[in-house]
């Protein structure tokens, strides 16, 4: 049943290696990427590295606990970490519009920058375009790396339409803004008036005409002014996108694909693994979050359900419920051995054949309070047998979940046996403090499957 991946992903050596400079967490939405990135950052910092975590869209309370709920686009030092190993943790939340504005401000003189920032096309592009967030995340990564103030940068990736967007969008935006079409569109604007017309053949004028018709002349003009201003003020977008791309391929970068043991998430993870390989991006391994385990994995769902059924049958009729009480009293009296044989409970007949002991119903009839609690309002007594039956049903549900998770993991492992995996046991609630992140970090480093921890 167990996954037995070819390799278990060992997180600590990866985080400790001074050659590891960038860790990128990627994967489908809703699998815990941000939490994983934050937990990795904290762990690395507490192991002595100077770390900055770049998060995209953290849960509010997690951001608050790290002190980065103010969206100011600069790394802030996280307080409250254990810095005895000499490490530091900084964190920041990406503000994509601000990042874009900063590029403009950094590369254009004041007047020109104002013109760009006020351009309606720019405003839409910087705030709304679906790829801007991806592009700006990569841009910010490049900037943080260039500052060289940190030994390790941990990056969370945007919740994209699909995992691939994050690799594609910067290139797409870059190649578009540097592309042939833009050159054509901007040629008249740059060269101005009649001179520009020489470059336009019939096809092109038809095209700009159509675009003008479609988008409205104003938009086209806005685009032209925008691109012309951008183009003359700083190097091509494509060059920047290419530089970021190379950074991702560099030996100091490690990709972690984050997933949960669910079909869709693992399918995305598999795509990502394939894509990273195709792009020569260094994959360190798979982080499998929210894996369920059980300390009682030796008891199968089927057996648990059958046992619960036995108990329910024994307890079902109301008369039998009284008897259950009597039975417990008996057990307390030390006669348990005689009555506890499974066949006593295997048949619904047997309770009826036993004498009723009405006085056992009285709260003080000798039955310890521990054995019998009245559910308030419901008016029904809850017996230990009923509780046990429910505990067994709960266990059966857990075991069904386990085997479902196992099947999806097996499918992934069969497709990609080469990928090292670390599993993080599911937590009942969300993580919003350093203690919780530290716990996740321990689980990440532990790596072994919770199902195998017996």
């Amino acid at each position, binding site marked *: 049943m167990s996954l037995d991946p070819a390799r278990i992903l060992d997180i600590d050596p990866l985080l400790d290696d001074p050659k590891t400079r960038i860790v990128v967490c990627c994967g489908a*939405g*809703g699998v815990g990427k941000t939490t994983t990135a934050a937990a990795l950052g904290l762990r690395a910092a507490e192991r002595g590295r100077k770390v900055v975590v770049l998060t995209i869209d953290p849960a509010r309370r997690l951001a608050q606990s790290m002190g980065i709920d103010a969206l100011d686009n600069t790394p802030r030092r996280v307080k409250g970490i254990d810095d005895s190993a000499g490490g530091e943790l900084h964190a920041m939340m990406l503000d994509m519009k601000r990042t874009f504005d900063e590029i403009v401000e950094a590369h254009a003189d004041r007047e020109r920058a104002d013109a760009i920032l006020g351009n309606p096309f720019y405003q839409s592009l910087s705030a709304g375009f679906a790829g801007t967030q991806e592009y700006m995340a990569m841009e910010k990564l490049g900037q943080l790396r260039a500052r060289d103030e940190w030994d390790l940068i941990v990056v969370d990736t945007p919740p994209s339409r699909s995992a691939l967007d994050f690799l594609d969008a910067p290139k797409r935006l870059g190649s578009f803004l540097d592309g*042939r079409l833009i050159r054509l569109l901007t040629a008249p604007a740059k060269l101005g008036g009649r001179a520009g017309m020489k470059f336009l053949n019939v096809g092109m004028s038809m*095209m700009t005409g159509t675009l003008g*018709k479609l988008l409205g002349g104003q938009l086209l003009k806005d685009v032209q002014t925008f691109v012309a201003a951008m183009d003359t003020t700083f190097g091509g977008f494509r060059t920047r996108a290419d530089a970021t791309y190379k950074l991702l391929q560099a030996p100091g970068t490690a990709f972690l694909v984050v997933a949960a043991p669910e079909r869709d998430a693992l399918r995305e993870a598999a795509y990502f693994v394939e894509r990273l390989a195709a792009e020569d991006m260094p994959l360190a391994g798979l982080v499998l979050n929210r894996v369920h385990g059980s300390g009682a994995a030796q008891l199968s769902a089927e057996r648990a359900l059958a*046992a619960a059924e036995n108990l329910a049958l024994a307890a079902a009729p109301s008369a039998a419920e009284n008897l259950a009480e009597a039975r417990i009293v008996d057990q307390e009296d030390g006669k348990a051995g005689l009555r*506890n044989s499974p066949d006593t409970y295997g048949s619904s007949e047997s309770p009826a054949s036993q004498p009723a002991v009405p006085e056992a119903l009285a709260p003080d009839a000798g039955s310890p309070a521990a054995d019998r609690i009245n559910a308030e309002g419901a008016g029904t007594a809850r017996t*230990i047998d009923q*509780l046990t039956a429910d505990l067994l049903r709960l266990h059966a549900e857990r075991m*069904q979940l386990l085997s479902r998770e196992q099947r999806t993991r097996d499918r992934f492992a069969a497709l990609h046996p080469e990928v090292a995996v670390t599993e993080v046991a599911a937590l009942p609630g969300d993580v919003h403090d350093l203690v919780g992140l530290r716990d996740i970090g321990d689980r990440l480093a532990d790596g072994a499957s919770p199902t195998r921890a017996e």
Partner: protein
Amino acid sequence: MSRLQVVSGKGGTGKTTVAAALALALATEGKRALLVEVEGRQGIAQLFETEALPYEERKIAVAPGGGEVFALAIDPELALLDYLQMFYKLGGAGRALKKLGAIDFATTIAPGLRDVLLTGKACEAVRRKDKRGRFVYDYVVMDAPPTGRIARFLNVNDEVAGLAKIGPIHNQAQAVMRVLKSAETAVHLVTLLEEMPVQETVDGIAELRTAKLPVGRLIVNMVRPAILDEADLDLTRDASRAAIAKSLSAAGLGGARRGGGAERLVGPLLTQADEYAERYALEREQRAELQELDLPLHELPLLAEGMDLAGLYELATELRQQGIS
């Protein structure tokens, strides 16, 4: 009831699944529903276990009771060419534009345009009538972008207003907004009983309301079964481990004495009960937060066997029973 049903939700909440189940649920006897995908992920095809969907409406399922479900994966590039063809009769020129990257430009880069095309196509399907003047589709269900982007996605008018002040795109956006802001449309949000999805849902509803977009229902997906109730949980705190061990032993699960098969189960089973109790309390908090939103609230069960086609029909039946169609 609204004929355009938009389904959004945070990533990982199963919005595609819910959209598909909703389409099946709405396609009651003699009705037709169109399930529309706008993000190019081919999630519908995967769900219905079919080949990737082309940019073409095709029947993918017969709903319980005999209604029909059609599906369409809207490709923004093809939608733009469609649109050019429709308004400008630009067949060949359209291809030339594509070659030059103009289509890529218009759909990927020109902000808002892509969204106008996607919502525009869905609205067109809503309004389309056959020769006898009857609506071709009784319902159009859209598997929309996630909660964090939904208000901006639907509020195309604002998106393009600053950009295209006149011209066909402007007109198109106006027409789309008329449908989207009317009672013809309902935007449903899918969530889980977890903190982040609920928080996003609350934020998303506020954004939708600010944009004056009609909020429909809340659908809580993947609700785990309630196995232990309050009485059980109270009892787990007080019950003696020996008594539970005896009960397990009585159920045929080994010896109740220390080290016996039944005795060894007690600890792990109680740990699982504790985890359950913690989740139960969290879920109750989240449910209360959702109830405060004062919207119709539906719950769909987590399917023990995982999501497959049979499960999808199960969810559709569940939605019908909860009076969604």
